[in-house]
């Protein structure tokens, strides 16, 4: 177990190190002169020189890279060019919107998808199953930002039950939760579809197992067979996928926050693109990557604890 753990941790760290190199290369090497990207081609030479000096773009690449890594390790991410404030504080302020949004979407997705998947497996190859599969097919095909717009049309424009966008701030907790409901619903659509499919196929696998047949033969009620015997084991792959989805939820937040004008990390990325604020973009991307890698690592560990088989393969 310890060997598996340390191996997975080492692999994650190597991936993370490579990821920093890739992000650094894309942001600071690929465009040639980052100062020119940030200020535009019509910037005056002295303003360009001042910006280069301010962000250290005039230093050798390796120095710049190491300084960035040093900053990441000490949470000293430098200052945003557009906002003038510390990038770490900027991201921290926005996470209080994005994290609850992601958490709401993931809990909603799990609450809806698992019963749907169980139901589809129970009604295998019957109309109930086809209905769920048809729904998941639509869920996968519908862009989540369009689903968000449709929700706004229905529940904000037509019925005015929810705000069309915006965020009041956590000093008004009820209004804030209210403002996050439509965004969380739109963010969860694709995830519900994927999780329901995974639950269905995992359930179909476990329902074929001998112990399920034994439980049925013993006369256990169908509800007990489905939920106590089959679902418990089917949850192993479902947990894995739910964990993987958590990473994608955070990334999907970029578009959904833009649809609902929520001041989260996603909106920060969007604004930073328009402001050409490379310092912010670089750090947000790497923080998201760290988040995804950490979640993947935790999922692998949970998996190894629940199911001893992958330990041997790894």
């Amino acid at each position, binding site marked *: 177990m310890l060997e598996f753990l340390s191996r997975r941790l080492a692999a994650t760290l190597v991936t*993370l190190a490579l990821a920093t190199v890739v992000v650094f290369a894309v942001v600071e090497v690929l465009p040639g002169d980052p100062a020119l990207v940030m200020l535009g081609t019509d910037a005056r030479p002295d303003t360009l020189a001042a910006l280069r000096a301010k962000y250290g773009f005039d230093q050798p690449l390796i120095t710049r890279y190491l300084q960035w890594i040093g900053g990441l390790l000490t949470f000293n991410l430098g200052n945003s060019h557009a906002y003038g404030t510390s990038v770490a504080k900027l991201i921290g302020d926005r996470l209080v919107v994005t994290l609850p949004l992601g958490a709401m979407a993931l809990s909603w997705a799990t609450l809806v998808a698992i019963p749907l998947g169980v139901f589809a497996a129970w009604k295998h190859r019957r109309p109930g199953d086809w209905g769920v599969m048809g729904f998941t097919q*639509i869920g996968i095909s*519908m862009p989540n930002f369009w689903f968000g717009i449709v929700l706004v049309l229905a529940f904000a424009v037509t019925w005015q039950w929810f705000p069309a966008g915006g965020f009041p701030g956590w000093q008004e907790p009820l209004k804030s939760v209210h403002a996050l409901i439509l965004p969380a619903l739109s963010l969860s659509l694709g995830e519900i579809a994927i999780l329901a499919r995974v639950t269905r196929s995992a359930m179909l696998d476990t329902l074929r197992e001998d112990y399920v047949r034994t439980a049925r033969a013993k006369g256990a009620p169908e509800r007990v067979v489905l939920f106590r015997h089959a679902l418990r084991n089917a949850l192993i792959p479902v947990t894995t996928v739910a964990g993987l989805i958590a990473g994608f939820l*955070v990334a999907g937040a970029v578009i959904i926050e*833009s*649809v609902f004008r929520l001041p989260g990390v996603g909106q920060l*990325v969007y604004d930073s693109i328009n402001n050409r604020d490379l310092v912010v973009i670089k750090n947000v*991307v790497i923080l998201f*990557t760290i988040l995804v890698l950490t979640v993947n690592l935790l999922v692998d560990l949970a998996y190894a604890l629940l199911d001893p088989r992958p330990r041997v393969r790894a």
Partner: protein
Amino acid sequence: MNTFRARAARHVGFQIGAVLLLLFVGTALVSVLWTPHPIDTLNMRAKLMPSSTAYPLGTDHLGRDVLSRIMVGAQTSITVGLIAVAIGLTIGVALGAWAAARGGWVDEALSRTSDLIFAFPAVLIAILITSVLGASAQNAILAIAIFNIPVFARVTRGAALSMWSRDFIRAATAMGQGPVGITLRHVLPNIASVLIVQATIQFAVAILAEAGLSYLGLGAQPPVPSWGRMLRDAQTYIFQAPELAIWPGLAIALAVLGLNMLGDGLRDLLDPRLRLLRVG
């Protein structure tokens, strides 16, 4: 092939997918030659009009015909999707086939690199690339293509590896054929169905990605019509002209649904045992 046709005739999902795809491609082709109205003639007196006989889907905030713009938008989606998938397919298949034929460090390096790319949230990297290189259809294609490479590389490697252990390939090796010849003559033709199915699914994913990028303003730039961009504009006028926010989204959803159903159908018809990667 006859059995394929017979089974296709019974597979409803495949048929729905095929019809939707024909509609999608047909619309794009027709729009090359003809649209009900010119797509970029501004008419401020006829802006935000509801649907009528002259404008079946109404007009947008600049008085342009929405139906015509959705028709031409299909061209944008297909162009971006096709090129992105073609680049991903060409490079990915070459890398995957190489890794399967060669093994050893090539295989190891390829697997690690694709793990690395999968570690990034795809949307973010696409945003990163387009924000550094500038927002344009070409850069959107590039960003989407990069994520298609590891998908195809993994699928090809997996399928090709199982081919290399087959007897007829061992026989070809024993007869002195080289790895390149065997890959081209025996491995690739035998895994083509896997690649066709994956390409269909990736085409759907690419259309969704293009819509997302152009919704954020990072895809095709105006005046080129793109469905994502139309949704962004429609959202600004959601209280004045709510139906504007319906049509482009419906177009995206139907196109993607068609490709997904076709892909799933093809998988059932070509080989029911196939397992696919689905990376959003």
